């Protein structure tokens, strides 16, 4: 049970990041490497603010805002300076490393004795210091659901439709007399805000900020998004946002399973094989009809 719970915990936290990566990668068609540094940005902001005594719930909002700022930077570099998408992300990712170090103060900030969204005065009065495992998952689930529902609602607005249009066919956006550059920047802002929020929750759950925690974030995010979308391709009842979150949980399940089952030397290999299996299961099996010219 404990095993499933920890998969759920990690999967949901990274699910928030998957939502962010979904926006840039799938909707905007913009592979954003900046998330490798935006994830620790949220953690750095959270760690330094909690150490200074800020309300942990408030740090979630501040982290989101910090992420948005980073996203705006990536967007401006891409739109105004006409730098390619990958490179804008790389520039922000590289620059943010030192900024994250500066915000956190040092490269490793433990939060063992501080209040977090999971354990604070409020929860102590209910649970008397012994926080049950399901409480952690419940808190994370609430954050995930709020993000998902807000995102779904946003997608239905005019701004949301324009966001999707920019990714699919940005000529339409210009023909509607809207600035597609601004919309891209907005999309990057929301996306990085979500990734940063995810970093904040992760830091509070693992009770430590470490500067190297962001490495490989984009890979995790992309894997979650693609697994989620492929696996639930046929399930028309399920919104893509839900599929992406479940994709993240499946990803973490594969990693945990590989760790458990594999010897010490084969963990990543088994993880890769598990991904392959999942993607094969979700493969589109309808044969493509050849169009003869």
């Amino acid at each position, binding site marked *: *049970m404990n095993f499933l*719970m*920890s998969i759920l915990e990690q999967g949901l936290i990274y699910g928030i990041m998957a939502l962010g990566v979904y926006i840039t990668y799938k909707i905007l068609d913009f592979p954003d490497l900046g998330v490798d540094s935006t994830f620790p940005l949220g953690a750095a902001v959270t760690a330094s603010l909690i150490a200074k005594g800020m309300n942990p719930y408030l740090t979630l909002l501040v982290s989101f805002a910090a992420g948005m700022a980073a996203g705006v930077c990536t967007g401006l570099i891409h739109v105004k300076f006409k730098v390619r998408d990958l490179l804008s992300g790389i520039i922000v990712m590289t620059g943010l490393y030192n900024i994250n170090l500066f915000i956190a103060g040092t490269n490793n900030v433990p939060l063992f004795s501080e209040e977090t969204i999971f354990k604070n005065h409020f929860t102590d009065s209910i649970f008397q210091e012994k926080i049950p495992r399901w409480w952690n998952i419940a808190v994370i689930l609430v954050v995930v659901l709020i993000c998902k529902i807000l995102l779904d609602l946003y997608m239905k607005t005019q701004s949301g439709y324009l966001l999707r249009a920019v990714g699919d066919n940005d000529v339409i956006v210009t023909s509607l007399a809207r600035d597609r550059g601004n919309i891209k920047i907005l999309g990057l802002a929301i996306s990085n805000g979500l990734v940063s929020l995810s970093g904040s929750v992760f830091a509070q759950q693992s009770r*430590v900020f*470490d500067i190297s925690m962001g490495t*490989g974030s984009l890979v995790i995010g992309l894997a979650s998004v693609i697994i989620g979308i492929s696996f639930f391709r046929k399930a028309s009842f399920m919104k893509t946002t839900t599929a992406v979150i479940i994709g993240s949980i499946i990803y973490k*399940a594969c990693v*945990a399973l590989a760790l458990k089952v594999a010897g010490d030397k084969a963990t*990543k290999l088994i993880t890769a094989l598990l991904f392959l299996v999942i993607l*094969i299961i979700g493969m589109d099996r309808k044969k493509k009809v050849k169009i003869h010219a």
Partner: protein
Amino acid sequence: MKKKIAFILSMTMMAVSLAGCGTGGAESGSGSPKSAGKSQYTIGISQFAEHGSLDNCRKGFIEGLKEEGIEEGKNLTVKVKNADADTSMATQIASNFVSDNVDLICGIATPSAQAAYNAAMDQNIPVIYTAVTDPVEAQLATDDQKPAGEVTGTSDKLPIEAQLAMIREVLPDAKTIGILYTTSEANSVSSIAEYEKLAGQYGFKIKKSGVTNTSEIQLAAADLLDAADCLTNLTDNTVVSALPTVLGMAEEKHIPVFGSEIEQVRKGCLAAEGIEYVELGKQTGKMAAQVLKGEKKASEMKYETVTDSSLYVNEKAAEDLEITIPDTMKERAVESFTDISQN
């Protein structure tokens, strides 16, 4: 056909995961000391990365347990997992150990120790750490060496004063010491701060260069070698893994490189006032044995350090650099290498 394969594979996966959660759920923790009075122990060792010093810690740890009567194969099952320098992997490993309900978790190096402590915090599983340079900074212990919870262990704090004194003895005219370190390693940052504090007393200035990963080491080393009279190493995982590169570059410029422990001297560093990691591991193993047998609780044991440093010298390196090691030092040396090992 594909559908059948897919179905069988997904069923197997689900079966394995259910089996996985089954063994975890079967024995849920209770409030009393977990392992006291038991005759069979299961421990989890979470090692942060694969390199000589950490491997030595692990070997010493198992030796230390053996010396106290807890032996693998007799009354002990050991699960070893390596995080490959990945912090999220370290978190997952710790979670897995907790859901396996082990009697004790050993965390080797700060990130693995922190992840183990976090996972085991409310689960009544004691955590013993080793190779954590600053347990107070890592919040695993409070200022007066008392544990923050059911967590204790040993610290590999570098004998920096001894090292500075030794360097002065070998190089009476040197002025600047260069130090390569990785900005993401907490141990390195705190060691550098101490070096900078004490260097002046021995007439040295410190020039440091921080890298973010292995790929930047050559450039940073080249920069340091232009300005420093000698280099010295910390217990920095990234730099130590790339040691042969740095040694090669330093040798071309005839600049000596001092190490921080025996493995580095074996590979070609001139000398080191270092801690013996196997001994450190043994000390940790003995602490763990006391906790497993129920003689003491982890929260009652102050963390320990190895107070004596041992001098190691490499005479072949001295020969190549045309530096004479004073005879008094040679006599003091615990071990003297006459060769530079290639592996």
